[in-house]
């Protein structure tokens, strides 16, 4: 229904435009108009420039007001998250200031110096001081951002093995995720796609003879104990995938033929995050929107009521069902994690 309505609106706009086109066209018949801008055009478009400047500011404000709760710029759930978020905020502030000033100058000048017959422009071809100023200012600002950014980056990417991180393999295939834990020894057994044996349900190609593999645990829902560093080892069996965990500010591609890695420490359990007022607002908003689409959602066989969960999404185009490649992440206390882990089958027991 909305689709139809919007099409009708677009159709009306098209008809309106067509009419305007005809009026513009007819208005020029016989006029000694050489299609070069006159003072009248300059004035009209000069005012339009101011109007457009206001429009840019308005859409900026509107975006912040109506969409400002969308961005994931606070409430990160990992140890490195807040650092990354504050770098993001600082960059956004710099951008916002530069954007506001330069757009003002551009459009204001376009209005202020709109052409008039008989006036002559200022012949002003060069000024080395000015050029130096607007070379040096960006240099200083960018130097700050680069240094801050590189410290943050190194902090995130350098994995400190001495902290004894829990090793977890993320395994990607078209179009689902699996996770493999190292088990009691925290060491992953060797694996290669050439060892995959579907008849025996050895889907990840883990080496059955490797002693380290005997206590490995393979699951389809990722559980993480809060506060313990995790080192993810990513693998893919077919095409490129990308393990994207937006709430943890974490992402790394899964590349067939190599093992990539990314580490972080989860700091907020799923239960705690669900109690976060921002998240509760967001969830309430989503549920209100879902209620409007009730019939559609129930027809698709989904739960109408949405409850917050951390997610692992695929963020590299990987084929037809790319848009549905996800895995739930549960962050919980060490005790809850241990209880859950004890219920899981070890790798040898999961084989047929």
């Amino acid at each position: 229904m909305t689709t139809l309505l919007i099409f009708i609106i677009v159709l009306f706009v098209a008809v309106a435009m067509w009419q305007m086109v005809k009026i513009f066209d007819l208005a020029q018949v016989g006029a000694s108009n050489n299609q070069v801008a006159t003072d009248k055009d300059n004035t009209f478009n000069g005012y339009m420039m101011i109007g457009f400047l206001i429009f840019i500011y308005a859409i900026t404000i509107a975006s912040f007001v109506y969409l400002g709760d969308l961005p994931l710029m606070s409430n990160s759930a990992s140890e490195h998250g807040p650092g990354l978020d504050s770098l993001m905020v600082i960059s956004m502030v710099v951008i916002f200031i530069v954007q506001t000033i330069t757009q003002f100058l551009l459009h204001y000048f376009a209005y202020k110096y709109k052409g008039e017959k008989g006036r002559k422009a200022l012949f002003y071809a060069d000024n080395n001081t000015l050029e130096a100023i607007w070379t040096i200012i960006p240099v200083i600002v960018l130097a700050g951002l680069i240094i801050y950014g590189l410290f943050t980056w190194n902090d995130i990417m350098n994995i400190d093995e001495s902290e004894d991180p829990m090793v977890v393999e993320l395994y990607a295939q078209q179009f689902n995720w699996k996770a493999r834990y190292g088990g009691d020894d925290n060491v992953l057994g060797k694996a290669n796609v050439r060892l995959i044996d579907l008849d025996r349900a050895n889907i990840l190609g883990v080496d059955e003879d490797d002693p380290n593999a005997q206590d490995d645990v393979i699951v389809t829902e990722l559980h993480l104990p809060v506060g313990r560093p995790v080192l993810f080892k990513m693998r893919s069996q077919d095409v490129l995938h990308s393990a994207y965990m937006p709430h943890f500010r974490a992402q790394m591609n899964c590349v067939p033929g190599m093992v990539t890695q990314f580490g972080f420490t989860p700091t907020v359990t799923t239960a705690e995050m669900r109690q976060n007022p921002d998240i509760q607002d967001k969830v309430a908003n989503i549920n209100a929107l879902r209620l409007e689409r009730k019939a559609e959602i129930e027809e698709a066989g989904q739960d109408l009521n949405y409850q917050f969960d951390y997610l692992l999404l695929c963020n590299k185009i990987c084929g037809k069902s790319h848009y549905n490649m996800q895995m739930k992440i549960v962050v919980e206390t060490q005790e809850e994690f241990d209880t859950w882990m004890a219920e899981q089958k070890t790798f040898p027991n999961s084989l047929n």
Partner: protein
Amino acid sequence: MSATADTHAHDDHDVHHHKETFVTKYIFSQDHKMIAKQYLITGVIIMGIIGIMMSLMIRMQIAWPEQPNAIFEALLGKWAPEGVMDADIYLALVTIHGTIMVFFVLTAGLSGTFSNLLIPLQIGARDMASGFLNMISYWLFFVSCVIMILSFFVEAGPAAAGWTIYPPLSALPMAQGGSGMGMTLWLVSMAIFIASSLLGSLNYVVTVINLRTKGMSMTRMPLTIWAFFVTAVIGIISFPVLLSAALLLIMDRSFGTSFFLSDIFIQGEVLHYQGGSPVLFEHLFWFLGHPEVYIVLLPALGITSEIIATNSRKPIFGYRAMVASILAIAFLSTIVWGHHMFISGMNPFLGSVFTFTTLLIAIPSAVKAFNYITTLWKGNLQMNPAMLFSIGLVSTFITGGLTGIILGDSALDINVHDTYFVVAHFHLVMGISALYGVFAGIYHWFPRMFGRMMNKNLGYLHFWITAICAYGVFFPMHFIGMAGLPRRYYTNSNFPLFDDTTNAQTVITVFALIAGVAQLVFLYNFVRSIFYGKKAEQNPWKSNTLEWTAPVEHMHGNWPGAIPHVYRWPYDYSKPGHDDDFVPQNVPMKDGEEELHH
């Protein structure tokens, strides 16, 4: 203003007046002006219409996912059973939209039209260095367009691995329907396209270096020519690398080599590939892919420089700084490709290096933006449609460029990589900006190409609707990206997490549809003006550059008599000591007059 009377020997090569047939004049033409028009019609107009229509279908699917739509049924046929778009064809649309817009419209269409038209006319040459190569270049381009479009009609569908065609997805037909015959045609089309692009670029470079008229030193060249020249050089450096990547991918696909593939298990069987790496492909692809952004953008900036100076009736501010920043951008553009690969599994230290080089690009870009703004200051702005599009370009260039500071920062890229934030960023900074450059160029040089004027009021209507819609589409999109919504999702109905983005998506789609309709105004104006437009004067915008000294009528050799000589730089607008507010380049210096820009 006639060309100066004095002639000198080597200019006087006689203009051939051999009989032209329809075929030699309109089809296999070797005249740079006709080839420019051919590029304009094929590259910009026809491929542009196809590319934009695809984007509108993509937007409709995003806003109203999995709903029957008569437009899909009519245009996509078997790919939209009962009007519901298929997930495979969605990815194909995304892929081919990207390919067509980046390569066919904004590389070949933009450079092909304006480099061909303006290089000989603005440097004072009779034609390109090689008219024959120029003709071959266009026809190779034409063939590659035809092959790309034909790929829509193969059984399993066109290429659908994204315009970046990362293997293994693009290499394995069992990974995706589009990676069969569709991908083969994509690769063949691109290989031919690259050949066309290289022939064109070599021609531009040789022409600029060798065929400048007397007095046209490098520092007297209009910034358009500087931009086209440097763009051609970047193309020559980087396009062959893409060709090698495409050839190696063809080897992997068809001859069983393992350049990019290793350890693959798909559809129940292990493939024999061993030892290759998809990351190698990413390096090769982006070694072209990133310079490509500037291949698209620099000509648009060159066109804008020329139009802003002419219509401000002022010299472009900081000519030398502008040239220096073009050169700096060109150099830096070849050493930043890794910022597309921060999370590809590449060594994080390499990520640090690429962050550093990437953010450096902001410096010459900022210089350019400030110089444009200063050029407007105390000008006498003539608000022709071309001028509006040029100002619009500076606006979107700033808005889109600034978010590059976030994406170029490896740490921040972790969380917005491949989300809608990226889509918003690059559409504004290179898509919309370069399209504005194309429109500005068409409005400005239409009289030069067709001898008639375009209707200015329709131009205003076109600009203002497009400008508002461009921001309406891409500004809110940043926020959807910051919410973590990945790009290239057919629908996010399986992610309740993103349900609160759906209203914004609908608004964006409505803006996009209106923008699409607004382009019909342009199309109407363009086609109508070719036949019924007001006859153009010799120099309607009172511009200084040489193309406006040549007669309006189509003729080989551009100038009927001797080629004009050049005595000054192209930006003597409102120069003190002259009555007119413009002094064309072929007007000799007065006694005691100085070249003030040094």
